[in-house]
């Protein structure tokens, strides 16, 4: 299932949290060889994890991490503007309706639909919070995955060659995309909306509205 969890609430999900940061170490440090910080427990974290980001996480039936990504508003310090403006023609992407998405990560044994499910989670945020776009940092390997899912980013810029390439891209939000990602993930868009509502609250009548 999809979980939407702020950093400050991760402590309520210790297994999910620990397996997520461990899977991130495997992906970004071991497999991709990025210069990221891995602690003694084998968990990868950076300064943005300390900024109470919003994580979109695929939770496996056993309760552990199947895949995840991390959102931050672009009006506050975020990775794209702090570290990647050399890929955006020097443009800082800062807008109330654009959130940053980074650390797209899949568990080593993730079933194929997890990538689509995470993208669906991103689309839920887009529709639920009226975003126009997401801006993200991703490695070369992901380009094909995003393309196959039918939600390819508009690439703003790329550094490095071949497998080592890192890009910054924009994903445009729309309801049509949300529907398409649900189909790709083999999930009902009603179910993913339910997961969204469970995280952010269901719109119910306020008590006083009833009595009024």
């Amino acid at each position: 299932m999809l979980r939407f969890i702020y950093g400050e609430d991760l402590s309520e999900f210790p297994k999910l949290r620990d397996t997520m940061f461990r899977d991130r170490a495997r992906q970004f440090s071991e497999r991709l060889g990025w210069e990221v910080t891995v602690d003694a427990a084998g968990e990868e974290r950076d300064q943005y994890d300390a900024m109470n980001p919003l994580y979109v996480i695929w939770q496996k039936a056993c309760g552990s991490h199947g895949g995840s990504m991390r959102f931050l508003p672009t009006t506050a310090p975020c990775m794209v503007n702090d570290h990647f403006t050399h890929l955006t023609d020097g443009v800082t992407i800062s807008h109330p309706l654009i959130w940053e998405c980074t650390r797209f990560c899949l568990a080593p044994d993730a079933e194929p639909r997890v990538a689509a499910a995470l993208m669906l989670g991103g689309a839920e945020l887009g529709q639920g919070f009226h975003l126009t776009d997401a801006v993200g940092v991703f490695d070369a390997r992901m380009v094909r995955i995003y393309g196959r899912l039918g939600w390819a980013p508009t690439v703003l810029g790329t550094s490095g060659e071949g497998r080592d390439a890192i890009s910054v891209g924009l994903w445009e939000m729309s309801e049509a995309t949300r529907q398409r990602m649900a189909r790709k993930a083999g999930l009902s868009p009603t179910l993913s909306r339910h997961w969204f509502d469970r995280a952010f609250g269901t719109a119910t009548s306020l008590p006083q509205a009833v009595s009024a």
Partner: protein
Amino acid sequence: MAAALEQFIEGLQQASTLDDLQSKVFELRDLYEVEHVVYHSVNASGGQYAALTYGDAWVDRYITEGYERIDPVVMGCFQRFHPVDWRRLDWSGKVTRDFMDEAKDAGVGNQGYTVPIRGPSGQFAMFTVSHGVTDEKWTRFTEVHTRDLILSAHYLNQKALEIESGGTTKAPGRALSPRERDALTMLALGYSRAQAAESLEISEHTLRVYIEGARYKLGAMNTTHAVALALAQGRLVF
């Protein structure tokens, strides 16, 4: 009603003191025809500033009673960044219901929408509109206005930060890059978006994001206004 947003942003240009912002908040209330508008900012060193349309009695009561400790809006928004329809918050529990009844008596309204804002350098603010209407009407209102409310909240916040920092210095994040200047210049010269994107060798999607970003950084209400502001600040080169 994008016109309301444009009118608000245009009016914001003239604001140069925090008192001015107080009157802008009242203007915004009238533009959206809601009961109340509340803006509350806390900077990294704990300094606070508020501009709001609530009556003094309710503000005094709220502060005296320390209601921020039980207010579901504060609990649901503090240090977060997704906008919240009050109907999605947890209003169960006696203390919360009593608080809500009191707020209702004070004329806050039974509906609300709050935009938490995470600004630069650890600044945090909350922007709220509240109103007394049926669920059905409020649903319709939010469907139409949410994006504009989010933008209003951030433009107001940006202006408040600018005034607080002395008004003259723009935060570094708000400087236009040469690429954004190029994009604005092309539009100022009458190029269509497609033509501008083509000659800048970027996609129209990228151009849109650059232009919207530049508008936001300049505090402009639309692209024409952004071009005018950039010209006035000597940021465009023909």
